[in-house]
């Protein structure tokens, strides 16, 4: 049984290697580029690794074979229409826009605009030739020798990743908006977005990643993000995921937080056939604040898996985690929230809550809060609830004239509001509320 699974991965990895070699042949002079050296290192590393199987506790509910089975090619750019861009913009919100189609940076569609002094927003390849090359290189090297198969795969095929550098005490007023338009109608493809964000001490910035798909098609997004947040810095990170309901996504985010910094993640998962998020923060010093907010809405045969990890290794750090979701039809949701409070991490405040509504007989939610506390002077709480819509509430709303669907939809939106209302940028919150209500009404 186990060998069979490993063989399956071996065949998949052999395909990736073959695809890699084909790509390499087309590179010509680019082969010697430092970025490509790292890619080669990564594909070799991947050969030594295994994708996680069902026996891996962290992947118990999410079968990666399903994600990896389609024979993916690398994505080719599609044209992104004005209408689509317009539809994906946020009202009254100026942004630094980066557009990717099928994983390829679309330079004509991107509008970076004017950046505050000292800010770098470029491709990773460009960054490797710029003043922050060392910082970018260090992260890439980590990825190239990662023991995580998805990270190695990402590094092996990564192309135009994003590098952002925000100097000390610079406040970026406009969010960086990374819009991924994916359409795999031609043939299943995979794309490997990379982001390296270095936000120095005292800086403030917002990043939005969004995934949209004009058609329901099969493709695989395997994203990797590395964030370094300097002392007293603030970074808000939004993710709006509206992939095709036949698409796959693995999205890994690692955040390094220095003293007194605040990192907030707002993750909204609406699309995808199977989606796996790994959101991890690694505290580097004390006085930090970490907010993880998440909303997930699964219908049909969707499978949405959120794994979060907060490592409290220093005293006086706060973390606040709230994930809420609705699972309907034959869909499945997974939440695994791990919080470690190490022995030295006295005066930690760690709060975690996961609540789900499961609306049909065949819908499933697996939730596992994991709190490991080794310090004694801490305030920690966690809770997980799984429930249905309250019949008495439905009756109340209907007795005021709302029909059954309206009543249910209103209650579901109200249920998620506790999370959504934390989004500080009004126009993003408005878009998210609209997307949620559209998904309920569909």
């Amino acid at each position, binding site marked *: 049984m186990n060998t069979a699974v490993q063989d399956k991965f071996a065949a998949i990895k052999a395909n990736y290697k073959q695809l890699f070699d084909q790509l390499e042949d087309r590179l010509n002079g680019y082969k010697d580029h430092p970025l490509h050296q790292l890619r080669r290192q990564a594909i070799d590393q991947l050969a030594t690794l295994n994708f996680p199987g069902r026996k891996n506790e962290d992947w118990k509910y999410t079968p990666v074979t399903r994600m990896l089975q389609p024979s993916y090619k690398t994505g080719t750019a599609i044209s992104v229409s004005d209408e689509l861009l317009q539809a994906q913009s946020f009202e009254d919100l100026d942004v630094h826009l980066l557009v990717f189609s099928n994983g390829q940076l679309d330079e004509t569609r991107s509008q970076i605009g004017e950046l505050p002094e000292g800010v770098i927003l470029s491709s990773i390849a460009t960054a490797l030739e710029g003043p922050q090359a060392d910082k970018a290189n260090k992260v890439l090297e980590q990825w190239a020798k990662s023991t995580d198969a998805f990270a190695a795969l990402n590094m092996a095929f990564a192309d135009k990743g994003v590098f952002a550098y925000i100097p000390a005490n610079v406040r970026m007023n406009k969010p960086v908006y990374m819009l991924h338009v994916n359409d795999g109608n031609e043939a299943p493809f995979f794309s490997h977005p990379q982001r390296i964000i270095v936000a120095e001490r005292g800086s403030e910035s917002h990043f939005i990643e969004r995934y949209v798909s004009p058609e329901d098609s099969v493709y695989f997004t395997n994203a990797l993000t590395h964030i370094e947040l300097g002392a007293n810095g603030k970074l808000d990170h939004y993710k709006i995921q509206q992939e095709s309901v036949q698409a796959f996504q693995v999205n890994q985010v690692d955040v390094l937080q220095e003293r007194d910094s605040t990192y907030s993640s707002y993750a909204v998962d609406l699309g995808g056939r199977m989606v796996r998020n790994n959101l991890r923060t690694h505290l580097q010093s004390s006085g930090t604040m970490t907010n993880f907010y998440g909303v997930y809405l699964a219908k049909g045969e969707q499978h949405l898996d959120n794994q979060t990890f907060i490592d409290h290794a220093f005293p006086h750090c706060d973390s606040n985690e709230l994930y809420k979701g609705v699972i309907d039809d034959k869909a499945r949701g997974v939440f695994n929230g791990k919080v470690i409070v190490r022995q030295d991490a006295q005066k930690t405040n760690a709060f975690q809550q996961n609540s789900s509504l499961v609306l049909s007989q065949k819908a499933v939610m697996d939730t596992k809060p994991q709190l490991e506390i080794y310090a004694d002077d801490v305030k920690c709480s966690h809770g997980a609830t799984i429930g249905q819509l*309250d019949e*008495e*509430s439905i*009756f*109340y*709303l*209907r*007795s*005021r*004239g*709302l*029909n*059954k669907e*309206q*009543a249910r939809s*209103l*209650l579901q*939106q*109200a*249920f*998620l*509001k*506790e999370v959504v209302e934390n989004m500080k940028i009004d126009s993003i919150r408005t878009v998210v509320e609209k997307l949620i209500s559209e998904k309920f009404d569909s």
Partner: protein
Amino acid sequence: MLKIKDLRVAVEGKEILKGINLEVKPGEVHAIMGPNGSGKSTLAKVLAGREEYEVTGGSIEYKGDDLLELEVDERAREGIFLAFQYPVEIPGVTTASFLKHTLNSVRKARGEEELDAFEMLKLLKEKTKLVEMDKKLLNRSLNDGFSGGEKKRNEVLQMAVLNPTLAVLDETDSGLDIDALRIVSEGVNRLKSEDNAFIVITHYQRLLNHIVPDYVHVLFDGQLVKSGDKTLAYKLEEKGYDWIKEEIAAV
């Protein structure tokens, strides 16, 4: 307007209403009194259309049509309103947006224009004044953390906004202090007209000092065993329900 004939209702197989007969005409106020467990709230919920209550016999005719054929929300859109004994808390939905949703859905069903945000605000301001409710409550989640009195006032506010043809008040007076009772009653009295009717379900006579009924009915063990004018309510307040039990036993 409303004709209830030999209505029998069971909950989880147990018969609660055992043949109710009642006719309500426009402009009338009917009070239904009775001891705990006599079936008062069951009658209220059956009129509103609660699905868990199984009608095992009889009929309810409303505006000439079979009321039992209508879903809960269809009844609301046809002008039936139930003021809940225990209004439900709905966190995450503000009272204002809830009222906007419901009123526009009711108006749409009646073939009336939906109100825009400005008109809605004006209407809500006017109606909150009617029930002497703090406008701040409009921006709070529906009934969430409201005091008992605030919840009941909110019920009357919703009634004022939806302007029903037939309103059923299910123990709206329970848990209210004298001031709240006065405010709630005045709200109801101002809504009274020649075209609408009220069924006031209560345990106590004191509400009927404020909302004066044309008829008082006594519900006992699933049947309306006695009807009269408002003096019947005084007698019940004074003597309790025992004399009625004796009367029934004597028959």
